[in-house]
């Protein structure tokens, strides 16, 4: 099954919509609760990153009997130093974003921890694409 969701940069109040929709779908499919939890955490962090750091993006989800493939493609500044960005606690988030409770620098490490496969393709000045796979 294929699902798609648009994400707008800066729209924090709607952040989490895609992850809650996908959670609902996985629950209806009776996917194991701990697996759902991992999907929700990884997807939520990736979704918030588009909202916090990029201009706009699209989330593509493909679900089959073996697992879920997520692709999050955004138009945005891209990530200059991916290794640095992957470090726990590293963040370029503005003070305003931090005050909203985001920007603790734990997003990318959390995604990596919860995913079975995870890759980042990024071009500075153009955008970032995350590929996340979680097996059922």
């Amino acid at each position, binding site marked *: *099954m294929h699902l798609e969701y648009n994400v707008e940069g800066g729209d924090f109040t709607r952040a*989490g919509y895609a*992850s*809650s929709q996908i*959670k609902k*779908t996985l*629950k*209806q*499919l*009776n*996917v194991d*609760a*701990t697996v*759902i*939890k991992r999907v*929700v*955490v990884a997807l*939520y962090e990736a979704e918030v990153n588009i909202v916090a750091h990029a201009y706009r993006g699209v989330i593509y989800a493909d*679900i*089959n*009997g073996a697992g879920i493939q997520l692709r999050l493609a955004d138009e945005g500044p891209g990530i200059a130093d991916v290794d640095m960005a992957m470090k726990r606690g590293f963040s370029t988030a503005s003070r305003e974003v931090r005050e909203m409770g985001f920007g603790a620098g734990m997003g990318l490490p959390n995604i990596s921890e919860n995913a079975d496969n995870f890759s980042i393709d990024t071009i500075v000045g153009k955008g970032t694409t995350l590929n996340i796979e979680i097996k*059922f």
Partner: protein
Amino acid sequence: MSQTTYHRALEIMSDICIGCSHCMKVCPTEALRVSGGKAKIHVDWCIDCGECYRICPTRAIRVMDDDFKHIFDFKHRVLLVPSVFYAQFDENISKEKIYAIIGELGFTEICAVEQSVDSLLDEENEYLKTAVKPAISSFCPSVIRLIQVRFPSLVDHIMQLLPPIEITAQYYKNKFKREGIPENDLGIFYLTPCIGKIAAIKSPVGGYTSPINGVINMDFFFNKVFLAYKQRIPITQTVKVSREISSKGVLFPTTGGESVHIEGKTLAIDGMANVIDFLEMLENEEIEGMDFLELRACDESCAGGILSHRNRFLMANSMKEYACKMPVTHNLTEDYKKYCSAVIHMEKIEPRSMVKYDRDIEVALKKMEGARELKLLFPGIDCGACGAPSCEALAEDIVKDQADINSCIFLRTLYEKRGEMSLEETIAIMENIWGKDRFIKKK
């Protein structure tokens, strides 16, 4: 509809049901459908919240309580009364009068359900030291069932301690045993403000068997007591009243009455929709640093229970006023600790996730995709004319072979226009869903 091993707390009486579909529209788990002009419950999805009962205009939904006469099977007949019961009455009807009438109606002893609350609250604070956080109160049975059915990943958060009614019942059982009274002579009855409690007592969760012999419907019993009061029936029987109850106990079934005594960061949330919203957030791990959640299915908690008839705000207020007159703790608290702390724990509660499509994920995926495609054909206005609560629910029913695409009144009209269906067929389907006699005008 499917079979279940769970006790059914509700039954739709087909002869009274007019198939108006009001219940179908309020059910939080979409467990109701209309066919043949009658509402039907999908038992496995029902969480006993009673929203359908509350809204039914013809009182076609029956609460599966116990026959009152059953109390006379026992020599000693104890009635456990929740504090919401007294709040049903006008303030100028004294409690003494109500006790006397309850005795006259057949009970030999009366005790407050919430007598066990003081010791339970201590146990809760102790339990929370090592519990999965935030711990969710085990008090409201509809919330427990909601979590089992709709939030299976959160069952570990449900506090593994028995609710006050079970602890008080255990205390009585033990007390009579100590007094040398044979077990068969003792009947413990519970006066319930909600149907969730009926199901919880008849088929309890967490590896537990209840000592309660019968459950009495508060709505029914209020009428019985009030009638006796109005008719000034003479009092010929004596009844023993166990008067020990604290202000904590009186207020425990009201919103905040439990969480206020729990150490740490706590929240009290009442009302089914509010509870569902919050559990969604908890499931998404959006809630941080919370220690305890008091979640109650009814607005204003048990003051808004479906078997109480008085306005819930007035009731909650009466309970507050009553609590002001009561001591902060009572004399039996130590006794409760001594005799009940061994039985207060229950086992882990198992999830009961509702199988939406199929247990096999490949099959489920196919059906889900089919339902999504079907949904696009429907107008998306959730009119309910098909006998399902929403276009989405109809699509799901169709892929499970439990409904037909022609059930949609809009599609039927289109098919008719295209000449693919006759007017007679369209009407036959309508009668299939809503009943044949429905369109015969009654005087």
